[in-house]
């Protein structure tokens, strides 16, 4: 019985992860379309990302002569860790498909695995731009981590558990036990998630010349295809993490086909909404100086701290 449920959970999780991976280029494409519209350009179609990836996958990979093994394995590790996170998020159902990995702290540290290898590959290529990009990626991580941790901690404290399934189902059923605190935590996490998705003013995830995307600058061909795909998947996964915790409404609470379909539909609508909102915000902002990012992220941390204060006072 134990064995069976574990196998079932693994299959369900894997299915969810593969589906997310399959749709992630679509959402990146959507972001590109919205940007083009806001720039009054014609722009590529929604499916452009798929075309890019498919084309790149057939091309030869050429790397600098000095790069080592980390550079080579990074694309696979990148997609692997994000698939693992995707397996554990309760996106469509109230409970996580794979509860064994569904601890919020574990999830945050899985993102650290992503960041670790992503930046290491940048240094491994020996390129200046890749190196600076790696440094910035990690610096941003340091600025975001406290916001995300404190924001998630507030909801975890309200629920009394750090497991994402518990948080999600309690927030869905209890009609927000501490509404102000939860709302503030939502705000703080939305801010952190926006940064993690790699958006202006902090980052431009799809612009090759940008330093932020620096670790990619030496990738080419099939390797580049996988890394681009990995970054798209990361954006979807980060948005999914946010939705799973803070917008748990419309999820399937029973495991019937109808409710699962309804839950999937609700999730798709929520996900598209997040991407549209993020794209609109991104394109109305200007790119800021990197070294001043710290001043902006203090605001996010302030909001998270405020959420915690509201939690303490029981609001």
């Amino acid at each position, binding site marked *: 019985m134990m064995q069976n449920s574990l196998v079932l959970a693994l299959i369900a999780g894997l299915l969810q992860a593969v589906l997310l991976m399959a749709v992630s280029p679509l959402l990146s494409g959507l972001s590109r379309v919205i940007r083009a519209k806001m720039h009054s350009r014609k722009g590529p179609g929604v499916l452009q990302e798929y075309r890019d990836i498919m084309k790149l996958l057939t091309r030869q990979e050429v790397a600098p002569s000095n790069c080592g093994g980390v550079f080579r394995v990074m694309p696979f590790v990148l997609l692997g860790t994000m698939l693992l996170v995707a397996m554990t998020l309760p996106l469509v159902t109230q409970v996580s498909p794979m509860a064994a990995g569904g601890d919020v702290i574990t999830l945050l540290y899985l993102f650290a*695995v992503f960041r670790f290898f992503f930046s290491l590959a940048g240094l491994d290529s020996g390129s200046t731009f890749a190196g600076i990009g790696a440094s910035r990626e990690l*610096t941003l991580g340091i600025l975001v981590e406290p916001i995300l941790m404190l924001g998630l901690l507030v909801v975890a404290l309200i629920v009394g558990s750090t497991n994402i399934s518990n948080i999600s189902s309690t927030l869905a059923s209890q009609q927000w036990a501490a509404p102000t605190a939860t709302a503030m935590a939502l705000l703080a996490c939305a801010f952190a998630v926006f940064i993690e998705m790699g958006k202006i003013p902090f980052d431009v995830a799809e612009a090759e010349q940008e330093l932020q995307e620096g670790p990619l600058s030496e990738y080419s061909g099939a390797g580049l295809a996988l890394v681009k795909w990995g970054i798209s998947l990361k954006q979807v996964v980060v948005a999914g993490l946010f939705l799973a915790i803070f917008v748990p409404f419309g999820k399937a609470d029973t495991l019937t086909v109808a409710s699962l379909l309804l839950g999937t539909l609700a999730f798709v609508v929520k996900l598209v909404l997040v991407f549209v909102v993020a794209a609109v915000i991104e394109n109305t902002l200007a790119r800021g100086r990197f070294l001043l990012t710290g001043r902006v992220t203090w605001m996010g941390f302030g909001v998270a701290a405020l959420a915690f204060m509201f939690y303490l006072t029981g609001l």
Partner: protein
Amino acid sequence: MMTPLSWLGLSLALYMVGALLSLLLCRNEALAIRVSGLLSLVGGIAGVIAALPVLLDGGVITADYAGPFAAFAHLTLRLDMLAAFMVLVISILVVVTSLYSFAYLQEYRGKGAWAMGFFMNLFIASMVALVAVDNAFYFIVLFEAMSLSSYFLVISEQDDEAVGAGLLYFFIAHAGSVLIMLGFFLLYRHAGSLDFAAFREAHLPVGEASAVFLLAFFGFGAKAGMLPLHGWLPRAHPAAPSHASALMSGVMVKIGIFGIIKVGIDLLGATEVWWGVVVLAFGAVSSVLGVLYALAEHDIKRLLAYHTVENIGIILMGVGAGMIGIATHHPLLALLGLLGGLYHLINHALFKGLLFLGAGAVIYRTHTKDMEQMGGLAKLMPRTAVAFLIGCMAISALPPLNGFVSEWFTYQSLFTMSHDGSVGLKLAGPAAIVMLAITGALAAMCFVKVYGICFCGAPRSEKAANAREVPFSMTSAMWLLAILCVLLGVGAAVVAPVITNIAAQLSHTSAIAMASGASVFPGDVTQTSLNTPLLFILLLALPLLPLIIYSVKGGSDRLRFTRRGTPWACGYGYEAKMALSAGSFAQPLRVLFAPLYRLRKTLDPAPMLQRSLAATTDAAAKVEPVWDEHLVLPVVSGVQRLSRLVQWIQYGDFRAYCLYVVAALVVLLIVTMA
């Protein structure tokens, strides 16, 4: 059938014999290296055998010997679970470093390798004996022996830096032991005996107990290298040979933690809540500032030493949470906190040992500690590189390795504290959690820098380009530790209950289940759980999916992956110097956290110590000649004046001498005639 205590005795005896033989064989260093290494290796294995049954079965083994000072101090050995745990940690690291030393010490032939063998064995023996002894007198003696023998290891390079670092270390270590002695003296006044057993029974009034706790906390904290008493650590640990640094950073600083636990929890019973809060606060500050300062370093061993400050902070956070749990009678919090702290203690010993040995291997081949001179070593020293990468991942707390598991338990203890504690603790818990999160992110950045600058990209100097793989004895030592790092992470469900039992014995509560099947959980499986074997398997398996896409889609049409040419440099010709340096990698942080870096300059105890030392020696220099001036000088100058007075008699004119002879003759004639 040997008892754990006789195994322990055997291991101590082996270390002592190793030390003596190494001393006797000073003429034949090759043999001295082999003999002292082999004996400490076997001694380490005996130590592991001694510790394991106590850890697995629980219980306390004590033995009383008269000892040479029976009049006032009994030589009592007490192997409780905490002591056995420490013996295990020390012994594992001893086994590995001895293995490593066979090849590594060849570098030191002719530079006193025999003395290193002597002091290493003495150092190890004093640490092992220290954790098992149950009497304040012997404790202090062994503590001093440990400090002194490690002092000689620090100054083994004999250059200015090493001697200066050794002096600083000597002073801070002794300032610490003075505090500890004072603490023990206060306890002795109440207990009337120097035995720890009597200390445990002596119920001190709150004020005095707090004084003892604070004295011990700062005394042992100096040994542990916690902020702000850390100044010696980043100078002393790098100065020692790498296998000694591994032992100092991996184990010796843990003696400080052990002391804090011993006095705070075992002897005093952690009765006050604020003790735990103090430990937690110092831990949190140490962890963040330790890693921040590590990031600014580009001497690889100094960087690792600063990370020791960070990890000591993380361990103290767990221990602090545990002490708060004991004081507030919250068994779950007590167990979780101590579990997190002790788990991180062994984990840090393993991965910091691994990293120092790896750094030693790199220095062995490149002969520099400066990371800017390394680079590209992953291809030249592949076995070292992979082991080092595992160490980097473990210390960055990446799942599913051991560092992550212990930090996860620490997070859970702080979460429990924030959830169940009083208002003050509810504030302290999240503050500590946020600091732990920042520490984690900073550590990841720091080790990307270490691995990226040292092992990735192109060689940055001639020395690095000519490096090759180190001998088998060194790689095997590193790999042993790397495998243990993975095992202690993946096998969390096996390890956690054992450490929970130690925590339960310390806090005098019954153990709470923390694991079932392959997963671990913070006392309650419905709260949350962590299944490390599953994470491990999935992290290895899931990259296969993109690999399949990669190989299927490419098919046979795609040309093979090649490495060719140089990185893109905006159309200019690429030069190796364009690759990012260690300093510029951490530059954004130096800007963002500039005030904290300034703090280090103002808080550094080294200049103040230097100044007060200079003042003391000046004063001594002024006092010393007083005797000379008032007693010796008058006599000397009197004699000189006298001799100047008689000088005119003989100034070299031989006619005058003739006159003397004639005069003397005349005088003699007159005398004899009369």
